[in-house]
């Protein structure tokens, strides 16, 4: 078969699409599995919009976790 550039582009595209579809499905599994295992609670992030005063306690405090990280790596 004649493998000119256009054909190659076509095959590359099919491969990429398949690869990305697998990635996307893997992502769904990853989301549910990590919640089931108790590693992450994704639904709590919905509260970021509801409790959004500048003085509100962050759902996950970035500055506190940075401080912890520094302490751990002293």
């Amino acid at each position, binding site marked *: 078969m004649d493998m000119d550039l256009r054909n190659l582009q076509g095959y590359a*595209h099919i491969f990429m699409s398949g690869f990305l579809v697998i990635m996307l499905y893997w992502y769904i599994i990853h*989301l549910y599995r990590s919640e089931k295992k108790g590693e992450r609670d994704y639904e709590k992030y919905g509260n*970021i919009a*509801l409790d959004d005063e*500048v003085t509100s306690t962050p759902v996950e405090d970035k500055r506190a976790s940075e401080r912890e990280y520094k302490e751990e790596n002293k």
Partner: protein
Amino acid sequence: MQSNAALEYDYSLAKKFTFLTILFGILGMLVGTLIAAQMAFPELNYLLGEYGTFSRLRPIHTNTVIFGFTVSGIFATWFYLGQRVLKVSIAESKFLMVIGNIQFWLYFVGALAATISLLFGVSSSKEYAQYEWPFDIVVVIVWVLWGVGMMGLIGIRREKALYISVWYYLACFLGIAMLYLFNNMAIPTYFATEGLGSILNSVSMYSGTNDALVQWWYGHNAVAFGFTVPIVGMIYYFLPKESGQAIYSYKLSLLSFWGLMFVYLWAGSHHLLWSTVPDWMQTMGSAFSIVLILPSWGSAINMLLTMKGEWNQLTDNPLIKFMVLASTFYMLSTIEGPIQAIRSVNAIAHFTDWIPGHVHDGTLGWVTFMIMAAIFHMAPRMFKREIYSRKLMEAQFWLQTTAVVLYFTSMWIAGITQGMMWRAVDEYGNLMYSFIDTVTVLHPYYAIRALSGVMYFIGFLMFAWNIYKTMTAGKELTQEPQFRTPMA
């Protein structure tokens, strides 16, 4: 950056961009209404000499509503909700305030100058990308400034997790940056013709089919990253906040986000069905357009389910009505688009009025409704006053909803009639109708569209008036409302 008790969100930039949203909204929609009327009554082309013709005004309408109205709305809402979901005040960084203000003034002056340039016929003649190269450079600088401001704010945030809306604004920033740069690659004709051409007027760096492909990759994704992504970002913040209900499924919002990112970029070639573009690319455009229903409906259904158990708010609170209608129109246009992208349907729909019909149920019903709802929600927080009139808001809602319905139904009928008439042949294979036959038949539908334009525009003026009165005469609030927007 010290935390202190008096720390407050700074809405000065959000306010400035809100004013621009309203200003460009009035300008863009006024011109849109005028050109809709010109389609029905051609004498209206001769009101202002060359400056009043359809061909001069049409790019002003499209570019002003996209790059003026919508982009201002995106900036205004970003400078409002960006701070809130990151739990950091932009005023905590002098640098970010300066960058934001430079962005505002450069954008304001640049957008006005670009609009005037179109009035004078300075145009690169690529749809939705008509601005000539000097204005493109201004757009790029404004966009980079926004990016710096956005990344800067994210850098100093207190909230570690980026709320889903922030992801959408980031995607809007990156997507438009990439599309705008590639599609607007051009050379002034002066350099392409050894000095015979002009410095201001340019030609595309691509040619023929490639140019068309790049153009529609841009055109379609301008819809994706300008009219869809940031608007979804808005509704993911404003609907939960206004209703007091967290997003129905945060996981679904993440999945829809990545689905949208993955699929949208491939769908642009459906604008070039039945053209000289390679066949597999056309098929790909069609296939990806149909797959696109999934992430789009994923977001829309997520929004509607957010209201689960709280549907009484739909009757109690007109702002919820605006947002629920917006997500319903989002569902309508994201099912209509894929239908039009099916080859056999496209054979009838291509080049007909069904296409602007589709565009407008998206832009009027989804984009504009959501931006107006966002401004209604922000106004009492920014100006510390109640919304001036609930009755006016209700009247505006029904007037504009009727207008959108009239717009898209008239264009559906006009488009399908047009498509069928163009294709009709007699028993010998001769075309049955000449072009003017279609124009005669379509006249009443064009008149209905012009009427719907007038109605929608009046509704927008009611909105502008309500916001103006809120700022100046609304009842003062002592405390910032937590969820539901207070209105008189």
